Protein backbone atom coordinates (compact mmCIF):
# COMPACT_ATOMS: atom_id res chain seq x y z
CA UNK A 1 0.00 0.00 0.00
CA UNK A 2 1.43 3.30 -1.04
CA UNK A 3 1.60 5.88 1.66
CA UNK A 4 1.20 9.60 1.57
CA UNK A 5 2.69 11.62 -1.20
CA UNK A 6 2.32 14.97 -2.86
CA UNK A 7 -0.66 13.84 -4.90
CA UNK A 8 -2.59 12.79 -1.82
CA UNK A 9 -1.88 16.11 -0.13
CA UNK A 10 -3.04 17.93 -3.24
CA UNK A 11 -6.21 15.82 -3.22
CA UNK A 12 -6.87 16.96 0.33
CA UNK A 13 -6.19 20.59 -0.53
CA UNK A 14 -8.41 20.68 -3.60
CA UNK A 15 -11.26 19.02 -1.73
CA UNK A 16 -10.71 21.54 1.06
CA UNK A 17 -10.98 24.39 -1.44
CA UNK A 18 -14.42 23.20 -2.52
CA UNK A 19 -15.49 22.67 1.07
CA UNK A 20 -14.36 26.19 1.89
CA UNK A 21 -16.45 27.69 -0.93
CA UNK A 22 -19.56 25.90 0.30
CA UNK A 23 -18.92 26.27 4.03
CA UNK A 24 -18.03 29.97 3.85
CA UNK A 25 -21.57 30.68 2.68
CA UNK A 26 -22.93 28.53 5.45
CA UNK A 27 -20.89 30.20 8.15
CA UNK A 28 -21.73 33.73 6.97
CA UNK A 29 -25.45 33.03 7.27
CA UNK A 30 -24.96 31.24 10.57
CA UNK A 31 -22.80 34.01 11.94
CA UNK A 32 -24.89 36.98 11.04
CA UNK A 33 -28.44 35.73 10.87
CA UNK A 34 -28.03 33.03 13.52
CA UNK A 35 -29.70 30.67 11.07
CA UNK A 36 -28.30 27.19 10.69
CA UNK A 37 -29.43 26.75 7.13
CA UNK A 38 -29.79 22.99 6.75
CA UNK A 39 -31.06 23.64 3.23
CA UNK A 40 -27.57 24.81 2.28
CA UNK A 41 -26.72 21.38 0.87
CA UNK A 42 -29.92 21.38 -1.17
CA UNK A 43 -28.98 24.81 -2.54
CA UNK A 44 -25.60 23.35 -3.50
CA UNK A 45 -27.27 20.50 -5.36
CA UNK A 46 -29.78 22.79 -7.08
CA UNK A 47 -26.95 25.10 -8.09
CA UNK A 48 -25.09 22.18 -9.58
CA UNK A 49 -28.09 20.96 -11.54
CA UNK A 50 -28.88 24.46 -12.83
CA UNK A 51 -25.28 24.97 -13.91
CA UNK A 52 -25.34 21.56 -15.59
CA UNK A 53 -28.51 22.38 -17.52
CA UNK A 54 -27.43 25.88 -18.56
CA UNK A 55 -23.95 24.74 -19.59
CA UNK A 56 -25.51 21.88 -21.53
CA UNK A 57 -27.81 24.26 -23.38
CA UNK A 58 -25.35 27.07 -24.07
CA UNK A 59 -22.06 25.23 -24.04
CA UNK A 60 -20.64 28.00 -21.87
CA UNK A 61 -19.15 26.98 -18.53
CA UNK A 62 -18.90 30.47 -17.10
CA UNK A 63 -22.49 31.24 -18.02
CA UNK A 64 -23.57 28.03 -16.29
CA UNK A 65 -21.70 28.97 -13.12
CA UNK A 66 -23.04 32.53 -13.08
CA UNK A 67 -26.65 31.54 -13.70
CA UNK A 68 -26.36 28.96 -10.95
CA UNK A 69 -25.11 31.59 -8.48
CA UNK A 70 -27.87 33.98 -9.51
CA UNK A 71 -30.70 31.43 -9.36
CA UNK A 72 -29.58 30.07 -6.01
CA UNK A 73 -29.22 33.60 -4.61
CA UNK A 74 -32.84 34.20 -5.67
CA UNK A 75 -33.84 30.96 -4.01
CA UNK A 76 -32.15 32.33 -0.90
CA UNK A 77 -34.32 35.44 -1.12
CA UNK A 78 -37.47 33.35 -1.44
CA UNK A 79 -36.40 31.22 1.50
CA UNK A 80 -35.62 34.22 3.67
CA UNK A 81 -38.53 36.50 2.78
CA UNK A 82 -41.06 33.82 1.94
CA UNK A 83 -40.60 31.36 4.80
CA UNK A 84 -38.07 32.34 7.41
CA UNK A 85 -39.75 35.69 8.09
CA UNK A 86 -42.58 33.82 9.80
CA UNK A 87 -40.27 32.34 12.39
CA UNK A 88 -37.85 35.20 13.04
CA UNK A 89 -36.37 35.15 16.46
CA UNK A 90 -36.99 31.47 17.08
CA UNK A 91 -33.72 29.82 16.26
CA UNK A 92 -34.80 26.22 16.61
CA UNK A 93 -37.91 26.70 14.54
CA UNK A 94 -35.75 28.27 11.86
CA UNK A 95 -33.39 25.32 11.81
CA UNK A 96 -36.16 22.79 11.59
CA UNK A 97 -37.91 24.81 8.91
CA UNK A 98 -34.78 24.80 6.77
CA UNK A 99 -34.59 21.05 7.34
CA UNK A 100 -38.08 20.77 5.87
CA UNK A 101 -36.99 22.94 2.94
CA UNK A 102 -34.04 20.61 2.40
CA UNK A 103 -36.38 17.61 2.11
CA UNK A 104 -38.63 19.42 -0.34
CA UNK A 105 -35.81 20.75 -2.53
CA UNK A 106 -34.08 17.38 -2.64
CA UNK A 107 -37.23 15.62 -3.77
CA UNK A 108 -38.04 18.41 -6.19
CA UNK A 109 -34.62 18.04 -7.82
CA UNK A 110 -35.36 14.34 -8.24
CA UNK A 111 -38.63 15.21 -9.98
CA UNK A 112 -37.05 17.81 -12.26
CA UNK A 113 -33.75 16.16 -13.20
CA UNK A 114 -34.44 12.49 -12.49
CA UNK A 115 -32.07 10.41 -10.41
CA UNK A 116 -29.32 9.86 -13.00
CA UNK A 117 -25.82 10.99 -12.13
CA UNK A 118 -24.63 14.01 -14.04
CA UNK A 119 -21.28 15.64 -14.22
CA UNK A 120 -20.91 19.26 -15.13
CA UNK A 121 -19.07 19.65 -18.46
CA UNK A 122 -15.71 21.37 -18.11
CA UNK A 123 -14.27 23.80 -20.70
CA UNK A 124 -11.53 22.48 -22.96
CA UNK A 125 -8.73 24.48 -21.33
CA UNK A 126 -9.37 22.89 -17.93
CA UNK A 127 -9.45 19.30 -19.17
CA UNK A 128 -6.56 16.90 -18.97
CA UNK A 129 -3.75 16.60 -16.50
CA UNK A 130 -0.46 18.36 -15.80
CA UNK A 131 2.75 16.83 -14.45
CA UNK A 132 3.09 17.36 -10.71
CA UNK A 133 6.02 15.79 -8.91
CA UNK A 134 6.17 12.19 -10.04
CA UNK A 135 2.65 11.91 -11.41
CA UNK A 136 -0.20 13.53 -13.25
CA UNK A 137 -2.70 15.85 -11.69
CA UNK A 138 -5.99 17.05 -13.24
CA UNK A 139 -5.92 20.67 -14.28
CA UNK A 140 -9.49 21.13 -13.15
CA UNK A 141 -8.74 20.29 -9.54
CA UNK A 142 -5.92 22.81 -9.53
CA UNK A 143 -8.42 25.32 -10.90
CA UNK A 144 -10.71 24.57 -7.95
CA UNK A 145 -7.79 25.10 -5.59
CA UNK A 146 -7.07 28.49 -7.11
CA UNK A 147 -10.77 29.36 -7.09
CA UNK A 148 -10.95 28.54 -3.40
CA UNK A 149 -8.08 30.94 -2.72
CA UNK A 150 -9.72 33.63 -4.86
CA UNK A 151 -13.01 33.25 -3.02
CA UNK A 152 -11.18 33.48 0.30
CA UNK A 153 -9.39 36.67 -0.74
CA UNK A 154 -12.54 38.21 -2.20
CA UNK A 155 -14.54 37.48 0.92
CA UNK A 156 -11.74 38.75 3.14
CA UNK A 157 -11.58 42.00 1.18
CA UNK A 158 -15.35 42.29 1.20
CA UNK A 159 -15.55 41.81 4.95
CA UNK A 160 -12.55 43.92 5.87
CA UNK A 161 -12.37 46.65 3.24
CA UNK A 162 -15.98 47.55 2.37
CA UNK A 163 -18.84 49.24 4.15
CA UNK A 164 -21.08 46.19 3.69
CA UNK A 165 -18.34 44.06 5.18
CA UNK A 166 -18.02 46.34 8.16
CA UNK A 167 -21.77 46.13 8.70
CA UNK A 168 -21.73 42.36 8.43
CA UNK A 169 -18.87 42.08 10.90
CA UNK A 170 -20.58 44.45 13.26
CA UNK A 171 -23.78 42.48 12.82
CA UNK A 172 -22.06 39.20 13.69
CA UNK A 173 -20.84 40.77 16.93
CA UNK A 174 -23.91 42.73 17.88
CA UNK A 175 -26.88 43.09 15.56
CA UNK A 176 -28.85 45.30 17.93
CA UNK A 177 -26.08 47.84 18.14
CA UNK A 178 -25.91 48.14 14.37
CA UNK A 179 -29.64 48.70 14.24
CA UNK A 180 -29.42 51.31 16.97
CA UNK A 181 -27.03 53.22 14.73
CA UNK A 182 -29.87 53.75 12.27
CA UNK A 183 -28.86 51.11 9.79
CA UNK A 184 -31.43 48.84 8.22
CA UNK A 185 -29.97 45.56 9.40
CA UNK A 186 -32.64 43.62 7.52
CA UNK A 187 -31.11 44.70 4.25
CA UNK A 188 -27.70 43.66 5.42
CA UNK A 189 -29.19 40.33 6.49
CA UNK A 190 -30.80 39.79 3.12
CA UNK A 191 -27.61 40.69 1.26
CA UNK A 192 -25.70 38.22 3.41
CA UNK A 193 -28.26 35.52 2.83
CA UNK A 194 -28.01 36.03 -0.92
CA UNK A 195 -24.23 36.03 -0.78
CA UNK A 196 -24.18 32.86 1.32
CA UNK A 197 -26.65 31.10 -0.94
CA UNK A 198 -24.80 32.11 -4.10
CA UNK A 199 -21.64 30.56 -2.64
CA UNK A 200 -23.58 27.31 -2.29
CA UNK A 201 -24.57 27.70 -5.95
CA UNK A 202 -20.96 28.32 -6.93
CA UNK A 203 -19.90 25.25 -4.96
CA UNK A 204 -22.52 23.10 -6.67
CA UNK A 205 -21.50 24.27 -10.13
CA UNK A 206 -17.79 23.82 -9.51
CA UNK A 207 -18.07 20.66 -7.41
CA UNK A 208 -20.54 19.10 -9.85
CA UNK A 209 -17.71 18.77 -12.35
CA UNK A 210 -15.56 16.42 -10.28
CA UNK A 211 -17.82 15.15 -7.48
CA UNK A 212 -20.79 14.75 -9.88
CA UNK A 213 -24.44 15.50 -9.11
CA UNK A 214 -26.80 12.84 -7.76
CA UNK A 215 -29.76 12.67 -5.38
CA UNK A 216 -27.91 12.53 -2.03
CA UNK A 217 -25.03 14.84 -2.89
CA UNK A 218 -26.75 17.55 -0.86
CA UNK A 219 -26.72 15.62 2.41
CA UNK A 220 -23.09 14.62 1.97
CA UNK A 221 -21.80 18.12 1.30
CA UNK A 222 -23.98 19.44 4.14
CA UNK A 223 -22.44 17.06 6.63
CA UNK A 224 -18.93 18.09 5.54
CA UNK A 225 -19.91 21.77 5.76
CA UNK A 226 -21.35 21.27 9.23
CA UNK A 227 -18.11 19.70 10.33
CA UNK A 228 -16.14 22.59 8.85
CA UNK A 229 -18.26 25.22 10.56
CA UNK A 230 -18.41 23.42 13.88
CA UNK A 231 -14.63 23.10 13.89
CA UNK A 232 -14.00 26.63 12.63
CA UNK A 233 -16.59 28.45 14.65
CA UNK A 234 -19.69 30.35 13.69
CA UNK A 235 -19.31 33.32 11.38
CA UNK A 236 -15.53 33.15 11.11
CA UNK A 237 -14.02 33.26 7.64
CA UNK A 238 -10.61 32.18 8.88
CA UNK A 239 -12.33 29.48 10.93
CA UNK A 240 -14.05 28.17 7.81
CA UNK A 241 -10.74 28.10 5.96
CA UNK A 242 -8.94 26.26 8.76
CA UNK A 243 -11.88 23.90 9.24
CA UNK A 244 -12.02 23.15 5.51
CA UNK A 245 -8.29 22.44 5.39
CA UNK A 246 -8.55 20.15 8.40
CA UNK A 247 -11.58 18.25 7.08
CA UNK A 248 -10.24 18.08 3.51
CA UNK A 249 -6.86 16.75 4.57
CA UNK A 250 -8.30 14.37 7.16
CA UNK A 251 -10.68 13.01 4.54
CA UNK A 252 -7.87 12.38 2.11
CA UNK A 253 -5.34 11.04 4.59
CA UNK A 254 -7.98 9.09 6.51
CA UNK A 255 -9.09 7.20 3.41
CA UNK A 256 -5.51 6.21 2.63
CA UNK A 257 -4.22 5.38 6.08
CA UNK A 258 -7.31 4.26 8.02
CA UNK A 259 -9.85 3.16 5.42
CA UNK A 260 -12.05 1.42 7.97
CA UNK A 261 -12.31 4.49 10.14
CA UNK A 262 -12.88 7.00 7.36
CA UNK A 263 -15.87 8.60 9.05
CA UNK A 264 -14.34 8.59 12.47
CA UNK A 265 -11.25 10.40 11.24
CA UNK A 266 -13.38 13.40 10.29
CA UNK A 267 -15.96 13.46 13.04
CA UNK A 268 -13.75 12.24 15.87
CA UNK A 269 -11.57 15.38 15.89
CA UNK A 270 -14.69 17.48 15.47
CA UNK A 271 -16.27 15.98 18.58
CA UNK A 272 -13.00 16.44 20.46
CA UNK A 273 -12.77 20.10 19.48
CA UNK A 274 -16.35 20.65 20.56
CA UNK A 275 -15.73 19.02 23.88
CA UNK A 276 -12.95 21.48 24.64
CA UNK A 277 -14.05 24.49 22.63
CA UNK A 278 -17.83 24.28 22.30
CA UNK A 279 -17.90 27.29 20.00
CA UNK A 280 -15.22 26.02 17.63
CA UNK A 281 -11.61 27.09 17.15
CA UNK A 282 -12.42 30.63 16.07
CA UNK A 283 -15.92 31.02 17.46
CA UNK A 284 -16.75 33.86 19.80
CA UNK A 285 -19.62 34.06 22.22
CA UNK A 286 -22.19 36.60 21.13
Amino acid at each position, binding site marked *: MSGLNLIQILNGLTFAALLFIVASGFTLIFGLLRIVNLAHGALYLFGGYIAYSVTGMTGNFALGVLSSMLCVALMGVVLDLGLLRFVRGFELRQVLLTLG*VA*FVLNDLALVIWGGDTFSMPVPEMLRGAVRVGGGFYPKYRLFVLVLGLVVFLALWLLLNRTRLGALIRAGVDDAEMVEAMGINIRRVFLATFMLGASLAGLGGAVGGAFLTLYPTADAEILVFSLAVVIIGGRGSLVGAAVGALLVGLLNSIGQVMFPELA*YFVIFGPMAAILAFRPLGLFGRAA
Partner: protein
Amino acid sequence: MASAYSPQRRIPIPALASILIIFGALPLFASSYQISVANEILIFALLAMSIDVLAGYAGRTSLGHGAIFGASTYIVIYWISVAGGSPWIALLLGVLAATMLASVFALLAVRVSGVYFLLLTLALGMIVWGVCLRWTSVTGGENGIRGVGRPEIIADPLVFFYTTLVTVLIFSFIIWRFVQSPFGLTLRGIRDSESRMSSLGYSTASHMFIAFTITGIFAGVAGALYALFNNFVSPSTVQLSQSVEGLLMAIVGGIGTLFGAFVGSAAIILLENFVSDFTPRWPMVLGFMFIGTMIFAPEGILGAASKFFRSGWKKNRIKP
Protein backbone atom coordinates in the same frame (compact mmCIF):
# COMPACT_ATOMS: atom_id res chain seq x y z
CA MET B 1 -43.00 26.67 41.50
CA ALA B 2 -45.08 24.75 44.02
CA SER B 3 -48.25 25.74 42.23
CA ALA B 4 -46.96 24.37 38.98
CA TYR B 5 -46.00 21.25 40.81
CA SER B 6 -49.19 20.18 42.54
CA PRO B 7 -51.80 19.98 39.74
CA GLN B 8 -49.49 17.88 37.67
CA ARG B 9 -48.92 15.31 40.34
CA ARG B 10 -52.10 13.39 39.82
CA ILE B 11 -51.44 10.29 37.82
CA PRO B 12 -52.53 10.95 34.23
CA ILE B 13 -55.08 8.15 34.28
CA PRO B 14 -57.30 9.57 31.50
CA ALA B 15 -54.40 9.82 29.05
CA LEU B 16 -52.97 6.39 29.81
CA ALA B 17 -56.41 4.80 29.88
CA SER B 18 -57.41 6.23 26.53
CA ILE B 19 -54.18 4.98 24.97
CA LEU B 20 -54.83 1.56 26.48
CA ILE B 21 -58.42 1.47 25.25
CA ILE B 22 -57.80 2.81 21.76
CA PHE B 23 -54.85 0.56 21.05
CA GLY B 24 -56.08 -2.36 23.13
CA ALA B 25 -59.39 -2.53 21.25
CA LEU B 26 -57.78 -2.26 17.83
CA PRO B 27 -57.37 -5.99 17.16
CA LEU B 28 -61.17 -6.37 17.43
CA PHE B 29 -61.68 -4.79 14.05
CA ALA B 30 -58.27 -4.10 12.48
CA SER B 31 -56.51 -6.30 9.95
CA SER B 32 -53.13 -7.84 10.67
CA TYR B 33 -51.45 -5.14 8.62
CA GLN B 34 -53.21 -2.38 10.53
CA ILE B 35 -52.07 -3.96 13.76
CA SER B 36 -48.48 -3.94 12.55
CA VAL B 37 -48.87 -0.24 11.76
CA ALA B 38 -50.28 0.36 15.24
CA ASN B 39 -47.35 -1.56 16.66
CA GLU B 40 -44.96 0.74 14.85
CA ILE B 41 -46.88 3.80 16.10
CA LEU B 42 -46.42 2.63 19.70
CA ILE B 43 -42.69 2.04 19.28
CA PHE B 44 -42.09 5.42 17.68
CA ALA B 45 -44.28 7.15 20.26
CA LEU B 46 -41.82 5.93 22.90
CA LEU B 47 -38.89 7.28 20.84
CA ALA B 48 -40.71 10.59 20.41
CA MET B 49 -41.35 10.76 24.17
CA SER B 50 -37.66 10.27 24.89
CA ILE B 51 -36.92 13.21 22.60
CA ASP B 52 -39.70 15.24 24.20
CA VAL B 53 -38.24 14.80 27.68
CA LEU B 54 -35.16 16.70 26.54
CA ALA B 55 -36.90 19.16 24.23
CA GLY B 56 -39.92 19.94 26.36
CA TYR B 57 -38.55 19.64 29.88
CA ALA B 58 -34.85 20.39 29.53
CA GLY B 59 -34.95 22.77 26.58
CA ARG B 60 -32.50 20.73 24.50
CA THR B 61 -33.51 19.63 21.01
CA SER B 62 -31.68 16.48 19.99
CA LEU B 63 -31.09 15.08 16.53
CA GLY B 64 -29.13 12.13 17.90
CA HIS B 65 -31.84 9.98 19.44
CA GLY B 66 -32.45 8.03 16.26
CA ALA B 67 -28.88 6.78 16.53
CA ILE B 68 -29.33 5.84 20.19
CA PHE B 69 -32.55 4.02 19.30
CA GLY B 70 -30.85 2.20 16.42
CA ALA B 71 -27.80 1.25 18.50
CA SER B 72 -30.13 -0.74 20.73
CA THR B 73 -31.71 -2.37 17.67
CA TYR B 74 -28.27 -3.39 16.40
CA ILE B 75 -27.17 -4.89 19.70
CA VAL B 76 -30.39 -6.89 20.12
CA ILE B 77 -30.27 -8.37 16.61
CA TYR B 78 -26.52 -8.99 16.87
CA TRP B 79 -26.79 -10.75 20.19
CA ILE B 80 -29.61 -13.01 19.03
CA SER B 81 -28.55 -13.93 15.52
CA VAL B 82 -24.77 -13.54 15.35
CA ALA B 83 -23.73 -14.30 18.92
CA GLY B 84 -26.61 -16.77 19.26
CA GLY B 85 -27.49 -15.53 22.74
CA SER B 86 -30.76 -15.41 24.63
CA PRO B 87 -33.25 -12.85 23.35
CA TRP B 88 -34.06 -11.67 26.87
CA ILE B 89 -30.44 -10.90 27.62
CA ALA B 90 -30.25 -9.28 24.17
CA LEU B 91 -33.01 -6.86 25.15
CA LEU B 92 -31.17 -5.97 28.33
CA LEU B 93 -27.90 -5.48 26.51
CA GLY B 94 -29.60 -3.36 23.87
CA VAL B 95 -31.05 -0.98 26.41
CA LEU B 96 -27.76 -0.92 28.27
CA ALA B 97 -25.84 -0.08 25.11
CA ALA B 98 -28.26 2.71 24.23
CA THR B 99 -27.90 4.13 27.72
CA MET B 100 -24.13 4.04 27.54
CA LEU B 101 -24.13 5.64 24.12
CA ALA B 102 -26.46 8.33 25.42
CA SER B 103 -24.09 9.01 28.28
CA VAL B 104 -21.20 9.46 25.84
CA PHE B 105 -23.32 11.86 23.77
CA ALA B 106 -24.27 13.61 26.99
CA LEU B 107 -20.68 14.05 28.11
CA LEU B 108 -19.88 15.88 24.90
CA ALA B 109 -23.12 17.79 24.57
CA VAL B 110 -24.04 19.04 28.05
CA ARG B 111 -21.94 22.16 27.74
CA VAL B 112 -23.81 23.56 24.78
CA SER B 113 -27.45 24.44 24.22
CA GLY B 114 -29.78 25.50 21.46
CA VAL B 115 -28.61 25.23 17.90
CA TYR B 116 -25.18 24.01 18.96
CA PHE B 117 -26.74 21.17 20.88
CA LEU B 118 -28.77 20.28 17.81
CA LEU B 119 -25.72 20.31 15.54
CA LEU B 120 -23.56 18.37 17.94
CA THR B 121 -26.11 15.61 18.48
CA LEU B 122 -26.62 15.51 14.72
CA ALA B 123 -22.89 15.05 14.16
CA LEU B 124 -22.62 12.40 16.88
CA GLY B 125 -25.50 10.53 15.30
CA MET B 126 -23.66 10.68 11.99
CA ILE B 127 -20.64 9.00 13.59
CA VAL B 128 -22.81 6.13 14.81
CA TRP B 129 -24.28 5.80 11.32
CA GLY B 130 -20.80 5.86 9.78
CA VAL B 131 -19.59 3.16 12.15
CA CYS B 132 -22.59 0.92 11.41
CA LEU B 133 -22.04 1.39 7.69
CA ARG B 134 -18.29 0.85 7.68
CA TRP B 135 -17.68 -1.74 10.38
CA THR B 136 -18.80 -4.43 7.98
CA SER B 137 -17.38 -7.42 9.83
CA VAL B 138 -19.61 -6.73 12.83
CA THR B 139 -22.60 -4.77 11.56
CA GLY B 140 -22.95 -6.39 8.16
CA GLY B 141 -22.36 -2.98 6.60
CA GLU B 142 -24.98 -1.70 4.20
CA ASN B 143 -26.78 -5.05 4.15
CA GLY B 144 -27.30 -5.09 7.88
CA ILE B 145 -28.09 -8.17 9.95
CA ARG B 146 -31.10 -10.41 9.66
CA GLY B 147 -32.69 -11.68 12.85
CA VAL B 148 -33.80 -15.21 13.60
CA GLY B 149 -37.28 -14.37 14.83
CA ARG B 150 -38.89 -13.46 18.11
CA PRO B 151 -38.88 -15.71 21.17
CA GLU B 152 -41.63 -18.32 20.97
CA ILE B 153 -43.98 -16.78 23.55
CA ILE B 154 -44.22 -13.41 21.79
CA ALA B 155 -43.85 -14.73 18.25
CA ASP B 156 -47.52 -14.27 17.41
CA PRO B 157 -48.08 -10.75 16.00
CA LEU B 158 -51.08 -10.16 18.26
CA VAL B 159 -49.23 -11.24 21.40
CA PHE B 160 -46.31 -9.08 20.40
CA PHE B 161 -48.62 -6.13 19.81
CA TYR B 162 -50.01 -6.40 23.34
CA THR B 163 -46.51 -6.88 24.73
CA THR B 164 -45.47 -3.66 23.00
CA LEU B 165 -48.57 -1.87 24.26
CA VAL B 166 -47.98 -2.88 27.87
CA THR B 167 -44.25 -2.08 27.69
CA VAL B 168 -44.84 1.32 26.14
CA LEU B 169 -47.55 2.16 28.68
CA ILE B 170 -45.31 1.19 31.58
CA PHE B 171 -42.52 3.36 30.24
CA SER B 172 -44.94 6.21 29.53
CA PHE B 173 -45.80 6.14 33.20
CA ILE B 174 -42.15 5.99 34.21
CA ILE B 175 -41.32 8.93 31.94
CA TRP B 176 -44.24 10.89 33.35
CA ARG B 177 -43.07 10.08 36.87
CA PHE B 178 -39.55 11.16 35.90
CA VAL B 179 -40.51 14.58 34.58
CA GLN B 180 -42.76 15.22 37.60
CA SER B 181 -40.05 14.29 40.07
CA PRO B 182 -38.07 16.98 41.87
CA PHE B 183 -35.30 16.19 39.40
CA GLY B 184 -37.65 16.89 36.51
CA LEU B 185 -38.67 20.17 38.10
CA THR B 186 -35.05 21.20 38.37
CA LEU B 187 -34.68 20.41 34.69
CA ARG B 188 -37.53 22.73 33.90
CA GLY B 189 -35.91 25.35 36.04
CA ILE B 190 -32.73 25.01 34.00
CA ARG B 191 -34.73 25.17 30.80
CA ASP B 192 -36.35 28.42 31.88
CA SER B 193 -33.26 30.07 33.28
CA GLU B 194 -29.96 28.33 33.35
CA SER B 195 -28.18 31.19 35.09
CA ARG B 196 -30.74 31.38 37.88
CA MET B 197 -30.52 27.68 38.58
CA SER B 198 -26.75 27.66 38.66
CA SER B 199 -26.69 30.66 40.97
CA LEU B 200 -29.09 28.72 43.20
CA GLY B 201 -26.38 26.12 43.45
CA TYR B 202 -27.62 23.50 41.00
CA SER B 203 -25.09 21.92 38.73
CA THR B 204 -26.74 22.35 35.37
CA ALA B 205 -24.17 20.23 33.58
CA SER B 206 -24.64 17.19 35.79
CA HIS B 207 -28.43 17.52 35.60
CA MET B 208 -28.28 17.63 31.82
CA PHE B 209 -25.92 14.68 31.80
CA ILE B 210 -28.25 12.55 33.90
CA ALA B 211 -31.33 13.64 31.96
CA PHE B 212 -29.75 12.85 28.61
CA THR B 213 -28.52 9.47 29.81
CA ILE B 214 -31.96 8.55 31.15
CA THR B 215 -33.65 9.44 27.87
CA GLY B 216 -31.20 6.97 26.35
CA ILE B 217 -32.93 4.21 28.35
CA PHE B 218 -36.29 5.13 26.83
CA ALA B 219 -34.95 5.38 23.29
CA GLY B 220 -33.14 2.09 23.90
CA VAL B 221 -36.32 0.30 24.96
CA ALA B 222 -38.03 1.58 21.82
CA GLY B 223 -35.09 0.41 19.72
CA ALA B 224 -35.12 -3.02 21.33
CA LEU B 225 -38.84 -3.39 20.61
CA TYR B 226 -38.16 -2.32 17.05
CA ALA B 227 -35.56 -5.07 16.73
CA LEU B 228 -38.13 -7.68 17.74
CA PHE B 229 -40.73 -6.09 15.51
CA ASN B 230 -38.70 -5.88 12.29
CA ASN B 231 -36.35 -8.81 12.93
CA PHE B 232 -33.82 -6.94 10.83
CA VAL B 233 -31.43 -4.05 11.18
CA SER B 234 -29.38 -1.98 8.76
CA PRO B 235 -27.75 1.46 8.77
CA SER B 236 -31.03 3.05 7.73
CA THR B 237 -32.28 2.34 11.27
CA VAL B 238 -29.64 4.67 12.71
CA GLN B 239 -29.64 7.28 9.98
CA LEU B 240 -30.45 10.93 10.46
CA SER B 241 -33.98 10.68 9.08
CA GLN B 242 -34.87 8.41 12.01
CA SER B 243 -33.96 11.21 14.44
CA VAL B 244 -35.71 13.74 12.26
CA GLU B 245 -38.94 11.78 12.13
CA GLY B 246 -38.80 11.15 15.88
CA LEU B 247 -38.38 14.86 16.51
CA LEU B 248 -41.16 15.76 14.11
CA MET B 249 -43.46 13.33 15.91
CA ALA B 250 -42.65 14.99 19.22
CA ILE B 251 -43.28 18.42 17.73
CA VAL B 252 -46.52 17.51 15.95
CA GLY B 253 -47.75 15.94 19.16
CA GLY B 254 -46.70 19.02 21.05
CA ILE B 255 -43.36 19.66 22.72
CA GLY B 256 -43.67 19.28 26.46
CA THR B 257 -46.94 17.37 26.33
CA LEU B 258 -45.32 13.94 26.65
CA PHE B 259 -48.37 11.86 25.66
CA GLY B 260 -48.82 14.04 22.60
CA ALA B 261 -46.08 11.82 21.20
CA PHE B 262 -48.72 9.16 20.57
CA VAL B 263 -50.72 11.63 18.50
CA GLY B 264 -47.63 12.79 16.62
CA SER B 265 -46.43 9.28 15.96
CA ALA B 266 -49.85 8.16 14.75
CA ALA B 267 -50.28 11.27 12.58
CA ILE B 268 -47.00 10.81 10.77
CA ILE B 269 -47.05 7.04 10.31
CA LEU B 270 -50.68 7.04 9.16
CA LEU B 271 -50.04 9.94 6.82
CA GLU B 272 -47.04 8.15 5.31
CA ASN B 273 -49.22 5.10 4.71
CA PHE B 274 -51.98 7.20 3.24
CA VAL B 275 -49.73 9.28 1.00
CA SER B 276 -47.96 6.27 -0.46
CA ASP B 277 -51.25 5.17 -1.99
CA PHE B 278 -51.13 8.16 -4.28
CA THR B 279 -47.56 9.24 -4.81
CA PRO B 280 -43.97 8.27 -4.07
CA ARG B 281 -43.28 11.88 -3.09
CA TRP B 282 -43.25 11.18 0.64
CA PRO B 283 -40.00 13.13 1.29
CA MET B 284 -41.67 16.20 -0.17
CA VAL B 285 -44.79 15.74 1.92
CA LEU B 286 -42.66 15.27 5.01
CA GLY B 287 -40.75 18.45 4.16
CA PHE B 288 -43.91 20.48 3.71
CA MET B 289 -45.21 19.10 6.98
CA PHE B 290 -42.07 20.31 8.72
CA ILE B 291 -42.37 23.75 7.15
CA GLY B 292 -46.08 24.01 7.87
CA THR B 293 -45.73 22.89 11.46
CA MET B 294 -42.94 25.37 12.14
CA ILE B 295 -44.87 28.27 10.68
CA PHE B 296 -48.46 27.54 11.66
CA ALA B 297 -48.50 25.14 14.56
CA PRO B 298 -45.18 25.11 16.37
CA GLU B 299 -47.02 24.06 19.50
CA GLY B 300 -48.27 20.87 17.84
CA ILE B 301 -51.69 19.31 17.77
CA LEU B 302 -51.99 18.95 21.52
CA GLY B 303 -49.52 21.66 22.29
CA ALA B 304 -52.04 24.46 22.45
CA ALA B 305 -53.18 23.02 25.74
CA SER B 306 -49.72 23.06 27.13
CA LYS B 307 -48.34 26.05 28.88
CA PHE B 308 -44.90 24.54 29.04
CA PHE B 309 -44.55 25.15 25.41
CA ARG B 310 -45.04 28.84 25.65
CA SER B 311 -42.71 29.24 28.53
CA GLY B 312 -40.12 26.82 27.25
CA TRP B 313 -39.93 26.45 23.53
CA LYS B 314 -40.03 30.15 22.79
CA LYS B 315 -37.64 31.06 25.52
CA ASN B 316 -35.37 28.57 23.98
CA ARG B 317 -33.70 31.26 21.94
CA ILE B 318 -30.16 30.49 21.56
CA LYS B 319 -27.47 32.01 23.61
CA PRO B 320 -24.54 29.95 22.45
